[in-house]
């Protein structure tokens, strides 16, 4: 490979790493740091990166190439972040070459490494029940909260697959949670409607996104912080209106 080809290839590699991290919900400063470290290890010391939740700009400075990549959708996936982190660590301590790193990143890009769907649903159900107890609920409501939370999360996954509109799927999932909870209280299986709903919407609530948004703001990444804040606000709005609709129906 001649010099030009090599630099272009390197930029592709760094951008791919950055994109996977951002798609998986990593903090902005982390992504910038990882990309710059990788660039420095390849002798590209004047590299610059500008990362936002919806796109990344990466430049090698001066007359050298600059590239953009866009990030259409984001979902928290810690396993992918940790894999990219391992690769960048190996690259910077020159255990692997740039080509090997690129191949491995390509592999990560194709796979989302999620556990089987039923495990996720069980996890969501159990988490809902546990949150109910943490928010001072009664044990009688444990089962209704589990059912509502598991069902809500399952519907979220199904509708997200079918429509690709995150806002809509969260809305539908929240409606389902509200209906199940209200039904349980109506039938006398559950007692406190509010606590059941709070417990079982927890798998949908964008708590981590809000915290990371503020984190970005404190770190000085104002664009990212605002973008993520709006994302969290939209999700909260979807959940709120979904629950409100369900309670009006009942």
């Amino acid at each position: 490979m001649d010099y030009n080809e090599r630099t272009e290839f390197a930029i592709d590699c760094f951008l791919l790493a950055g994109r996977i991290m951002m798609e998986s919900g990593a903090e902005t400063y982390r992504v910038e740091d990882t990309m710059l470290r990788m660039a420095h290890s390849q002798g590209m010391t004047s590299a610059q990166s500008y990362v936002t939740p919806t796109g990344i700009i990466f430049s090698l400075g001066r007359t050298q190439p600059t590239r953009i990549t866009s990030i259409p959708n984001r979902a928290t996936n810690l396993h992918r972040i940790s894999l990219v982190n391992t690769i960048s660590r190996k690259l910077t301590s020159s255990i692997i070459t740039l080509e090997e790193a690129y191949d491995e990143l390509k592999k990560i890009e194709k796979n989302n490494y999620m556990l089987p769907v039923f495990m996720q649903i069980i996890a969501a159900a159990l988490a809902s029940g546990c949150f109910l107890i943490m928010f001072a609920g009664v044990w009688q409501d444990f089962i209704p909260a589990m059912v509502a939370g598991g069902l809500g999360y399952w519907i979220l996954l199904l509708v997200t697959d079918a429509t690709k509109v995150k806002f809509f799927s969260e809305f539908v999932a929240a409606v389902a949670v509200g209906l199940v909870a209200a039904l349980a209280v109506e039938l006398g299986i559950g007692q406190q409607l509010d606590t059941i709903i709070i417990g079982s919407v927890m798998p949908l609530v964008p708590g981590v996104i809000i915290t990371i948004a503020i984190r970005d703001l404190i770190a000085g990444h104002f664009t990212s912080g605002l973008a993520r804040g709006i994302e969290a606000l939209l999700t909260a709005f979807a959940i709120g209106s979904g629950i409100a609709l369900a309670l009006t129906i009942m």
Partner: protein
Amino acid sequence: MDYVIQAVVSFLASTCFGVIFNAPFRKLLYCGVVGMTSWLIYFVLTELYAFDIIHASFASAMFVGICAHILAKRLRVPMMIFNVSGIIPLVPGGTSYNAMRSLMENDFTMGVQYSARVFMIAGAIAMGIVFAEVFIQVMRKAMTKQKTV
């Protein structure tokens, strides 16, 4: 007894959230332990010492940040894995639910109050984690200075 139950449920909840956020499978146990400890600190502070929710969230988050730093260094994984699972029990889910519900019911006075609270709690959590990072950096600098001298 109350504390044992709270410990068990918060451990389970954090581990389950680790599964939902797809934390690396072998680190799930650590996620659960970090989440459990942070919730116990929060629980003891609010129940026993009658701390304000915001102060308790800050203290717990700072602990999570320090824990996450140590674990991440030792296990060679990104800090975020432990940060996220440690924060999960502190996230103001109930308050944000109340905020959304009041707004949807056209009760704007309460809605804005709850929203401000959510913002304050989330801000306290973020601040706790950032402060922990600064604290660790200062400690590390002090330690390396001691070694060189």
